């Protein structure tokens, strides 16, 4: 990966919880058009990287978005470029689906005494609702939604936010197959527009292989391999990292369906 064209550049990122190092001197960059899959066994520090870039936890090192240090960015400005889908989606109160989706426009809401208006807001919210198929649910309480519907609600919020880089932490965790397919197809569609990129943590290696352009293989906080999806997802690397014959296992699994 070239450095000069990078949208996101993570430089020597280290995260510690007490004396335990969860992310150990990790550097990588993401260019427009790329979908970087962060893969690796449990405890590799994958989600922690997403948490650090989205400024949810303390870290050492730097994260730059188009050359700007994300730690020094104003939260509103950061949210206009960077959209994050977190893993935990438990909602406490019975907001309507529409209310939650509209929160995605927070970063564009005019400040007090400002003459600006959020001109594109309505159109973007409507487009996001249409894309995710949440139209019939708009007035429904989010507490009554299934896991898949809730995920689509937050995806709609994310699309309404209209960022250029998506950070996704296990976007299809606990979702039924149909929603896994829908979610990845939606994100793939979103990525097609110019100047956009996606970084996601994925457990399912088949999904990573199917949708990713690039991959970063991690183990115990360290980067084992990085590059295009084909380069990283080769038998030797995967087998060594996951401590099993990944290719044979995947083959066995899929041969059940033939």
């Amino acid at each position, binding site marked *: 990966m070239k450095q000069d064209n990078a949208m996101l550049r993570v430089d020597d990122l280290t995260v510690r919880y007490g004396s335990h190092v969860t992310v150990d001197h990790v550097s990588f960059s993401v260019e427009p058009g790329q979908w970087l899959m962060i893969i690796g066994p449990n405890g590799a520090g994958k989600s922690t990287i997403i948490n650090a870039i989205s400024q949810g936890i303390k870290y050492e090192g730097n994260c730059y978005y188009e050359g700007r240090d994300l730690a020094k960015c104003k*939260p509103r400005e950061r949210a206009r470029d960077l959209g994050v889908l977190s893993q935990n989606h438990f909602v406490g*109160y019975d907001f309507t689906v529409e209310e939650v989706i509209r929160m995605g426009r*927070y970063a564009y809401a005019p400040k007090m005494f400002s003459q600006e208006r959020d001109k594109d807001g309505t159109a973007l919210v409507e487009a996001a609702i249409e894309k995710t198929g949440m139209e019939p649910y708009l007035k429904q309480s989010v507490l009554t939604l299934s896991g898949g519907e809730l995920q689509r609600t937050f995806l709609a919020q994310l699309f309404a936010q209209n960022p250029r880089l998506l950070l996704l932490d296990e976007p299809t965790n606990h979702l039924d197959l149909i929603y896994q397919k829908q979610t990845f197809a939606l994100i793939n569609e979103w990525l097609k527009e110019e100047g956009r990129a996606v970084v996601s943590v994925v457990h399912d290696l088949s999904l990573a292989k199917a949708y990713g352009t690039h991959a970063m293989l991690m183990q115990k906080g360290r980067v084992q391999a990085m590059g295009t999806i084909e380069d990283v997802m080769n038998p030797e690397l995967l087998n060594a990292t996951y401590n099993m014959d990944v290719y044979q296992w995947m083959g066995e699994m899929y041969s059940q369906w033939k």
Partner: protein
Amino acid sequence: MKRRADGFGITEYLVFTVITAAVFMVCTCVGSVNIALSDVIESLRLALNGGEIPAAIYGTYNILIRVRLPRVICVALVGAALSLAGGAMQGLLKNPLADGSTLGVSSGASLGAVIAIAFGIQIPGLAMGGTMVMAIAFAFLSLLLILSLAYKLDATLSTSTIILIGVIYSMFTSSLINLVITFAGEKVRNITFWTMGSLQGSTYTNALVMFGALLVFGGLILLKAGELNAFAVGEDNARNVGVDVKTVKMIVLISISALIGVCVSIGGTIGFVGLVTPHMTRMVVGPNHKKLLPASMFSGACFLMLSDLAARILLRPLDLPIGVITSFIGSLAFIAIFYSSRKGK
């Protein structure tokens, strides 16, 4: 499936104001001595415009203008402030059981106030300044202590963690309050005032101070209603959509502490108001804080005025501590909320 408008509209303000005004009038008329509405209005007119007080209503005028009116005004303002603080805290922590009394913030504020009185900490020129500043400072320190402890133990701030810490902290501060009162003797009001609260003997000055605090800190909280919506979905959600999480949290926590601190120095610890009223209000207007918070202020005022009325007339002429009523209703509501939130999981 009902549609909810975003803000608190003129109609809603009007409806809530009329209800609150009606409750206010009832609470000024009824008491140890019942006063006819016409006499109340006549006394109010005289008090505002001046003029000779007719001998026929001289007695009622005194009761009403000197004793009952300042008390009811204080009760209304304290109710509004506690309810607003509770509603804000529940949004910020995404927990419907968070409140000054359940978290132990009110007891912390009481401790501050008691220490100020016992050790004669005063601010020259301000009658209750020392007590208030100490109550606010202790409320804020308590919040910081409780929340950082809770975050350490359980980053998701689950209900059981918060409540457990709140209970322990309340017991801890109560023991210290008792200790200080034992040594300070006559100077400090009795322990019932600090644990159960009372707005007996409130003055117009009290009301003015409470009004000022509500204007400044209540206003700050209301300005952050949009951010509180994002927090109510989750702190991660707030950060992701672009809320300046740290700053907003600080502003809201300081405002909550200030409101609770002032309430406590005027009326002691009045439990559960901030728990019951935002919850009931949420059932009516929905969870959007742009609506919920203003509505909670009105309903908080009404709830506390009615509780105070009950405290005054239930065992007439005995004046019950107001917290007896609010805690009685509040604990039942607490169980109901806890039960329904558990069942939902």
